[in-house]
Structures are given as C-alpha cells and as structure tokens.
C-alpha cells in the first residue's frame, strides 16, 4: 500500500479511468494549463490533451451543461466546480436536467457524468466560499451523492463514480486534500452506497462524513482517554444511504450524535436523526444530538471561523450529554 494525499488519490483515480476509457474527459475552470485551482488535475492535460482536459470560461451553467449533453451521447464527463459554492449557478443543469432526463424520457436517456470539486470551508475564505450544500443535492432523486473522508475512499469512490451510469455529485473538501492515508497499489474501487465503520466502539455512535468524519475520529481519541469508546460511522455516500450500518451501530450503543459541516436547519444530519429515531426507537437511551456549523454565514476572522465550525471539543461535549455525564 502506498501512502498518498487525498489530492494524489483523486488525481490517480481520474488518470487511471481516463487511460482506461477514452470516453472519460474533464472540464472546468483552470483544470488544464493551470493544473487545477487546487491541483487535483495536475499533469492530466499533458497526458490526455486539451480536448479531454478542457479549460473553460468562468461559466458554471455551461460547464455543467457540457457535461450533461456529452453524457447524453455516450461520453463520461467529469465537470470540476472550482468549489461547490459556485455550483449554485449550475444547479438547474444538475437538478432539472442531469437528474430528470432519464425519468422524463421513460428510461431512454442516461447521464453518466460526475460533478466534483471541493465543498465546505477552507481557511478564512468567508461566507460566499465556505458552504456545504450536500443536503440540497441529496434531497434530489436521480442523483448519487458521494463525500469521501480518506484518500482510499476518495480514490475507490471516484473510480466508481466515473464508471457508474448515473449522475454523481462528488463532494470533496479542500481541508482534506493534504490528508495522507494508505491507498491500495492494485486496481480497486469502492461501491457507491456502502458505508464504513471508521472506528469501533460500544458506548456511542458518531455519524459523520467528509471532513466531519475526521473531526469525529479526533473526538473519539479524546473520549478514549476518558474511557468512552465511540464508534465512528461514515456513510461515505449520502444518496443512496447505507442506513443499516448506522442502525446496527446505534442499536449496539443506544446513543447517537450526528456531526456535519453544514448549517443545522434541514441539514443532512436531520435526515439521519429522523431515520435513527424511527428505526432505533426502542434502542435509544438518549435523544439524538447533532453538531453542526453555526446557523450563520461563515465569518472571515479566524477566531470566529473556529467558533463557527464543528470542533472535536463540541463533539465531545455532545457525547457527554447523550451519556448524561
């Protein structure tokens, strides 16, 4: 196993799939000559040429539209959003086109595309550049929504996303791009919709994905010092959701805290909480708690940014509450 950063893992996934299948191509702002705003596409334009790695104007709606149209006629586009904040400008293409043409045509059309890029907060990039919209995408039938938290998951899931025949929204996290982890050397992929227990524990279940899963692992280490064994469940894919994995864990621990980087109101964590209370009603020894970002736009100042985000300490505090400590 090689140790790779998530950046390298994502780059490998695209590079391998592009080498394997000539129908795969990438487009987006600065993905080519500039090697990617966050260097995820480093080296790809040199390998595959500027038709398969296409720099676009700053025009998110048509970036997504190009992906949709090309996918309709058999290609496998990967549309990079420089960040998912800008995907609001492409949302109609994804929600009203990518997600619906198969249905509206009675199954005649498919849209095997991936829209990917960083989501969530970076470092002090403020309100317009720090948003987490996964609950919006996950709300929409017709889409698959993936949010990896490790380099291995990132590579294995992105390869599946590229090969899958449905429109996949693949949300990365800038803060995780330098995160290192072991990635198999041999060819592999991880099926979409399969969650993973990132840490076993008997006392409480922490459900989280992407950056928040890392936050939960940090919290779990702190809790271990106090003798509390937290189980960290990472669904990895939000739609379809591997709910059984979550239920099994909660039935074991009887306690559940859901952690996410999004805003609290109707965040994806609410969906998990709702399903857990319904499916684990008798197993729950305490109400389900949620740890989210503050219910305000992201502030710029470092002190406020820290206060805004879900921190391990807040997770620990929530765990104390569900354990009635």
């Amino acid at each position, binding site marked *: 196993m090689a140790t790779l950063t998530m950046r390298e893992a994502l780059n490998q996934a695209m590079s391998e799939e592009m080498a394997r299948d000539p*129908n795969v*191509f990438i487009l987006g702002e600065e993905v080519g000559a500039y090697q990617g705003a966050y260097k995820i596409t480093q080296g790809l334009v040199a390998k595959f040429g500027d*038709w*398969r790695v*296409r720099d*676009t*104007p700053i*025009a998110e*709606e*048509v970036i*997504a*539209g*190009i*992906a*949709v*149209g*090309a*996918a*309709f*006629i*058999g*290609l496998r*586009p990967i549309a990079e959003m420089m960040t998912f904040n800008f995907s609001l400008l492409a949302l*109609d*293409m994804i929600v*009203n*086109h990518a997600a619906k*043409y*198969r*249905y*509206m*045509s*009675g*199954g*005649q*059309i*498919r849209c*095997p595309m991936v829209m990917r890029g960083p989501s969530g907060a970076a470092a002090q990039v403020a309100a317009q550049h720090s948003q987490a919209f996964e609950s919006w995408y996950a709300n929409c*039938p*017709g889409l*698959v929504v993936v949010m990896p938290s490790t380099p291995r998951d990132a590579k294995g899931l992105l390869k*599946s*996303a590229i*090969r*899958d*025949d*449905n429109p996949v929204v693949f949300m990365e996290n800038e803060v995780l791009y330098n995160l290192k982890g072991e990635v198999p050397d041999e060819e592999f*992929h991880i*099926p*979409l*919709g*399969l*969650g993973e227990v990132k840490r076993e524990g008997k006392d409480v279940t922490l459900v989280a994905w992407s950056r928040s899963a890392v936050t939960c692992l940090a919290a779990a280490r702190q809790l271990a010092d106090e003798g509390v064994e937290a189980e960290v469940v990472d669904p990895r*894919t939000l739609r*379809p*959701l*591997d*709910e*059984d*994995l979550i239920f099994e864990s909660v039935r074991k621990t009887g306690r559940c805290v859901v952690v996410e980087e999004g805003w609290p109101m109707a965040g994806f964590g609410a969906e998990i909480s709702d399903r857990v209370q319904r499916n684990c009603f008798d197993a729950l020894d305490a109400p389900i708690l949620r740890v989210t970002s503050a219910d305000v736009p992201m502030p710029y100042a470092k002190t406020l940014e820290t206060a805004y985000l879900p921190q391990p300490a807040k997770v620990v505090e929530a765990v104390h509450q569900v354990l009635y400590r």
Partner: protein
Amino acid sequence: MDRDEAFRLYRQMLLIRRFEERCAQLYVEGKIGGFLHLYIGQEAVGVGAISLMRPDDYLIAYYRDHGYAIARGTDPRALLAELCGKFTGISRGKGGSMHFYDAPRGNFGGDGIVGGHLPVAAGMGYGIRLKQTDQVVLCFFGDGAINEGAFHEALNVSALWDLPVVYIIENNRYGMGTSIDRASSVADLYQRGSAYGIPRREVNGMDLMAVRTVVGEAIERARKDKRPTLIEAETYRYRGHSMSDPGKYRTKEEVETMMKSDPILAWANRLREQERFAQDDLDLVDKEVLAQVEECVAFVEQSPDPPVESMYEDVYVRSPYIHMRAAEKDPAWRAATREDRVPEELPPSQARVPDEHPTAPPASERRPSEEGPAPDPTTAALQATAKVGS
C-alpha cells in the same frame, strides 16, 4: 428538392397541424392535462430544418416540441399516448406534452426550462468533437430564451471551441404575453450572435424553402468546419402560448394578417404551381392525415394507464458500481434497469381514407394532373382551424 420530397414535407406539416388541432380538442375534453403548447403556425421551421438532418444527427428542443418529434419520424400514436399520459406513450406517460424524446432517432426532445437545453446542446456538440464524427446538433428554442444567461454561456463556448451546433430561434414575436421588443434590447435577435463572432442568419420561418436553404448552409458549416450558427426564424404561433392563454396581448388583425402567410397554404400553392400537383392530391393527403390522427385517438383509447409501480422505474440506471444492499431499500433502485428503454416501433399505420374515397396511388406514381391550380378548399379549412387562444 424532388417532387416526392416536396409532397412528403407537405404531408408532414399537415400531419402536425391536424394532430395538434385534435390535441386542442382532447385538452378541452380533459383527456390531455398539464400544459399544452401548440406549434400551429410554426410548422415550416421544424419540418424544413429537420428534413435536412442525417439519421445520426441530434436534435434537442424546448417544450413546444410536438412538431419536431413528428418531423423526425416518431409515430404520432406514441406521441398522442404520451399527451394522454398512457403507458404506451413515447415517454411511458412520464413526460407529457413538454417532454417528447426519441433517443433512437437522436431526439433529446423537449425541455421545460426556458434556455435550459442550450448548454446541453453545446455539450452534445462537444461530445461530437471528442468522438470526432461529423454529426451535427440542431437546437430549437424560442425568442424568450435568448435573454437567459444559459444562451450566453452556450453561445460563447460554441463559438470559442467550434462546436457543430445549429441554434435556431423560433421567433414567434412573443414569450407568453411579452413581445420581443419588451424583452430584448436589440430588435434583430440574430444580431445577438455578434457578441460571439458566430455566423448568424435571419430567415422567413413561414417559408419552408427559405428555412431549408439557411439551415442547410448552417448544417454544412457545422459538419465540415465544425462551426456553430445562430439562426433567427421569423414565424408566428396562431394559438395562445398554451391552452390557458386567451392571447389578449395581440390584436385579431395581427393574427389574421400573419395567418395569411400560412406556411402550409404557401407550400400547397407551390406544390400546385411548381410541382403541378392537383388539388385532389392535396385534399386526399389531408383526408389521409385526418384518418391517421383518428387512428392515434383510437390507439390511445386502447392504451392502459401506467401501473403505479412504474412510478419508481426510470429514475436510475442499475449499475455494478452501486452497493445494492443499501440501495435496494429504495424502490427506485430496485426498479432500476441496466439498459436504456427503446420505445417499441408500433405496427405500420392502418390509417385509411374513409371508403367512399378510393385510396389514391402515391402522388409520385401519378402524372401531374392536367388542370391548373383550382380554387383551394384547404385554405378555408386551415384558416377555420386557426383561431387564437382556443
């Protein structure tokens, strides 16, 4: 264009016209629901342009899409069934009037989002460049769509990257109740192309021949030089925007004046005068077409509604890359199929002209009728049907 082709296109325009007149009745009878946008008056644009497409070319359009599907050869029975929400509909009753698709014929059909399909058309053009074929994309939209950001973004990249897409504005002078001069800062819509350095043309959309000439050049430009074109086809919709629109924003005079240059009447004249068809030929084809439309209605009456389970079908493609244990709790994933659905071809039309008229041999096999142009009953017939906003 040879004589048969000229006659075939006449029949096609007439079929669209009669088909939609019947749709209007069925809508009033409550057999068709949702929105119903009729193409009546604009037939020459779609028929002329699509008649030049190769079988492997692509078509993508907006919600006023009945004419395109018929012109591209989709069985009108499957279209009327779709309009009536039947399981035999081209989209299995899931799309309705705004969403006619026929993938095997390269028809990516009707989009309900104004301007929304333009970026998609550009994407099809980009895919063609990647596949290095010489296919082209025809993209139809209304005059209202040119003010959407999507139009701008799509045209810029199409020009920048030389995408083989022909963008055709169906300028029928109104976007719902808003006339183009109240929506666009420039009067000549094709001039919008100047901002992208894209070839741009204006054409009389009521003249099928003119449409074929201009679109023909654009298709060649796309096929050979990969260059896009923006075409403004000046046309007119006789009916309201949709069935619920009485069309108060236009005068009776305006509508009647426009109807004088009816594309079907004009083509009928041409057939009589230049191709030397007899009025009988035209009357006969009208009867054939009416019979064919009734056959569609009969087909719909025998067609079942979609079974409730089918609601969950056609959301996803079953894929080996999805972990089914999790996914299958969701009925939409359970119902997902690996393959795309191909609309089944229906048995050939049995539509016959009512017996009292012996079926005539195809126009082509008959020598041009001797007697010159006769007074034209179709005129009255057609005009009668062209009431505003009914």
